[in-house]
């Protein structure tokens, strides 16, 4: 497994994603207010913020599913409407097709995008991704026969199968129970370390961000601005729920939201 110890904070690597002064408004309501940040190749970046802030909107802007009201976005050197071939999504809900087997669901992304070669090669590729997320034996099952955590792993395999440069994850763990959540976040970390993909991960869960991220960008409530950038250079795996260093960071992050001991991850079952 790769050991990503130092984050290249000032190194010469060109960013793979760049947002500069991005503003997004839906009608009168301003969601993002002149937000700027970069993502470096291979980085695990968490966008952390209270529910209903512009985290998911940021992902949709990067993915070219939504044009910004103003500002500039570049993904892999291209505007987002051209760069969508470089990235894949994992959503909060797995969004699998119930009439397809697990294997066929993993193949769906390749089929829709028209990549991955012929049927046999796609099958082989999909099987390899299922192996990676630990679901090799479930290939012939239907999503209805899987648990919530397993379904989300299928969705991750589906995203990986396209071999994208960037994977955008929109609160992929927030619909799961606590123990599944903790198991799956460790798996996401392993998959990331193994594949070396760039991941942009949206969450409102501070522990999750501390566990996973190379760098955390903390968003304010609407209209969203960046409150702070937070490098987490500690070695992995991290004991975020017991290590005093992380507990201190946890408190610090929570206070950033202005409501100590509440708000940010109040939706989570813990705390």
């Amino acid at each position: 497994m790769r050991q990503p110890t130092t984050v290249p904070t000032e190194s010469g690597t060109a960013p793979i994603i760049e947002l500069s002064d991005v503003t997004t408004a839906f009608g009168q309501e301003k969601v993002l207010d002149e937000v700027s940040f970069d993502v470096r190749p291979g980085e695990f970046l968490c966008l952390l913020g209270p529910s209903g802030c512009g985290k998911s909107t940021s992902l949709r802007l990067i993915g070219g599913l939504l044009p910004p009201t103003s500002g500039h976005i570049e993904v892999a050197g291209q505007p987002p409407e051209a760069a969508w071939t470089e990235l894949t999504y994992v959503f909060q809900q797995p969004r699998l097709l119930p009439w397809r087997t697990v294997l066929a669901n993993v193949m769906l992304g390749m089929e829709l995008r028209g990549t991955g070669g012929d049927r046999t090669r796609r099958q082989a590729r999909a099987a390899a991704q299922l192996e990676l997320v630990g679901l090799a034996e479930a290939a012939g099952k239907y999503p209805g026969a899987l648990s919530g955590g397993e379904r989300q792993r299928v969705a991750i395999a589906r995203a990986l199968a396209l071999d994208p440069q960037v994977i955008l994850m929109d609160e992929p763990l927030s619909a799961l129970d606590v123990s599944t959540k903790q198991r799956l976040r460790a798996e996401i970390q392993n998959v990331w370390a193994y594949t070396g993909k760039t991941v942009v991960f949206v969450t409102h869960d501070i522990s999750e961000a501390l566990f996973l991220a190379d760098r955390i960008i903390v968003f304010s409530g609407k209209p969203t601005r960046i409150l702070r950038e937070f490098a987490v250079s500690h070695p992995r795996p991290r004991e975020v729920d017991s290590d005093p260093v992380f507990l201190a960071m946890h408190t610090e992050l929570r206070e950033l939201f202005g409501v100590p001991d509440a708000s940010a991850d109040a939706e989570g079952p813990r705390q």
Partner: protein
Amino acid sequence: MTIDLLPGAPDRRTGSRSRRSTPPPKHGRAWRASRLTLMNGAPVLLIIGWWVASRYQPAYIVPDPLAVLHRTWDLLAGDRALFANTYISFARVGISVLIAVALGTAIALTAKYVTVLEGLLVDRLMVFVNAFPSIGWAIAGMYWFGVSTPAVIFVEVAIILPFTLITIWEGLKALDAELMEMAQSFTRDTGRIIVKVVAPFLAPYLFSALRISYAGAWKVAIIAEIFGASEGLGYLLNTAREQFDSTTLYACILTLILIVYVVDKGIFRPVETKLLRYRKAASSHR
């Protein structure tokens, strides 16, 4: 009108069987034997009662069931002059069902994707065709198209259209934005999204529309053919009525019931099972 089109239909948004009912209680041997006895015994008793009644009544009131059975055989395969009528009706029903499903799909898709038309198509047209009386279409069809096959097909399509339209509209409404967003995150090719996601999602609804409208079209066929045809099972039934030939009249009805039943059991049920096999597989794997 509410019709339970797909009892326990899959919640295709999440892929979970959200309306999954608790498994039926396991019944004993006695229960199953009673069920079979009632299911088959009651009709047999009815036929015996019918046969007894036919001994004491004139044939135009209660015809001999064996004569009716014999005439039914003629209508299905025994007598060329008679069974020609049956298969003409069959062909008209088949064509009408295909037209109604195609038209229903086209209208529902238009209402979904040309949003400015939704009010007209759903709140006006759908309500209108749904409430329009069958007999009204039958008379109008005869006036507009004369006594002809197009008249019959027009009437059948007009009467079953609301069933297909409503079913497919429900399917399109169930196709949610989240699934479409997932598909769009992988491709910008609308054709591929339709082939890989939209069409398979709608398949059970389309099939349901086909199945409902098939049974409906047969009932309608009789009315349509009474008014607008010079051959066909409905025409035959009407002629028999005029001549007080109750044997042929009941044989026409029995033929219709048999054709509806056999096609439903022999074609529709197996296809439905195949289409929805993933649900069964999902529950048995757990």
